[in-house]
């Protein structure tokens, strides 16, 4: 609140004017700004490079999760059907899900005749699974790409441009900012508006977003349906930390059993259309 008061107060009290070497502008302010822009662009491209790669699964596993998703879709989009077709589909899906026709493990056991007993082991160690390690790696990489450039630049600014005041802010701040913004400047009574290089770094970190947008985002792609939303069919059941596919299917079957109240989108559609367009 106090900050707001000071921010909004007309600047009546005069501040002692400092004479700064104009070379500060040339050799401190500009290099930091250029570095900020460049690393921002670099980061974007880096994120593209380390984006997760295509990952495959065995086909049976995908079939299993697709049948599960079909049940979910019936629940979610069932309003698109009339009552009779919804009912018949509901019963069909309940049968399929509760009997586990398309469970991947079952198929495997049938074909290999118990050569592998994966069913017994229960919960596996998440770190022994290479797939999970992969996803953890991509997550970690994404985070690293975000904060490593930040740390590096901050260090760079502090190391090369620390210990002196380079500019005056156009707005006043409370005394609390003194520690942060005049870091390394040994003057107790200097006004907070005189700040060191690191505060220019902070301001540009906060305010760079519009600039990045202008530099790279001006392609006004007007493609009418650009189907880049990716396919949602590749999620698989029983990922890390999830219950077994079998349980999930049973649960969904239960949900479907309960879902007897079906609300079709065709109820009152005529009056709705008339109201919309007439």
């Amino acid at each position, binding site marked *: 609140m106090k900050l707001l008061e000071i921010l909004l107060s007309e600047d009546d009290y005069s501040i002692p*004017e400092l*004479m700064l070497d104009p070379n500060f502008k040339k050799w401190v302010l500009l290099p930091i700004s250029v570095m900020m822009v460049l690393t921002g662009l670099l980061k974007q491209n880096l994120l593209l490079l380390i984006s997760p790669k295509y990952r495959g699964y065995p086909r049976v596993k995908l079939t299993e999760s697709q049948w599960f998703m079909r049940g979910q879709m019936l629940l979610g989009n069932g309003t698109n059907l009339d009552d009779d077709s919804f009912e018949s589909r509901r019963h069909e899906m309940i049968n399929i899900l509760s009997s586990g026709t398309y469970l991947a493990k079952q198929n495997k056991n049938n074909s290999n005749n118990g050569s592998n007993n994966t069913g017994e082991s229960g919960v596996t160690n998440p770190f022994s699974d290479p797939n999970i390690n992969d996803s953890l790696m991509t997550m970690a990489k994404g985070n690293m790409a975000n904060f490593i450039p930040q740390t590096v630049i901050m260090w760079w600014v502090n190391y090369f441009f620390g210990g002196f005041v380079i500019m005056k802010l156009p707005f006043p701040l409370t005394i609390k900012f003194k520690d942060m913004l005049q870091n390394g400047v040994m003057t107790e009574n200097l006004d907070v508006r005189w700040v060191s290089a690191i505060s220019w770094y902070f301001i540009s970190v906060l305010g760079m977003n519009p600039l990045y947008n202008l530099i790279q985002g001006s392609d006004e792609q*007007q493609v*009418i*349906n650009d*189907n880049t939303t990716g396919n949602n069919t590749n999620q698989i059941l029983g990922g890390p930390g999830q219950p077994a596919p079998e349980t999930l299917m049973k649960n969904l079957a239960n949900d479907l059993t309960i879902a007897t109240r079906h609300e079709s989108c065709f109820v009152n559609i005529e009056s709705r259309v008339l109201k*919309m367009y007439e």
Partner: protein
Amino acid sequence: MEESFSRLLENYSTCYSDLMEFEALKNLLLRKEKKTKSKIVSETTDSSFFDSATFFGLKINLAHILMSFLIKILYIVSILQVLHSGFSSYEFHQLVKNTNYKDHYSLPKDIQLECCIGLALFILTSFLSFTKLQYYPIKPSINNKLRLLTTDQYLKDISLSRANNVHNLIGNDPNGEVTFTPNFVDLQRKRKEISDWLADNSKE
């Protein structure tokens, strides 16, 4: 060349589920086709016409090219103005700093004015740079021309029923990947159809 019309009507046969009636309609179109055939064939095989008119649609878009050029110029002018006033302001402050009367001088009016005009011009230009949405129809019309369809809006409708109007306007099926069953196309038949058509047309 009305064959495309009849083909389209075939898709719309649905509307006339009486097949008999549909046949009658088709015959009507075929008769019409015979009448107009000679004229249209000469148009389709005229390759120079084909080159200029269908591709870039130069005639219609001269105004647009001029407009985008003008907008670029305006951007440059406004940015130069702001830069120039910035430099003037810099010089002024350097001068004033070395005198003892720095509180007595404020920035000269002309610099202020130049700066403000630059900003106003910039804002104006960035609003002018919005263009109305334009589309080419998916299928060329019977004389092989693509007529540029301009809508009267700068932004896209968000409500689903209106957003789909664009598809209807240009004759697009947004779910074509499903409805045309592209993975089940009989390639050999398609090739034959096209080579037959090419043979027919090159003869005439």
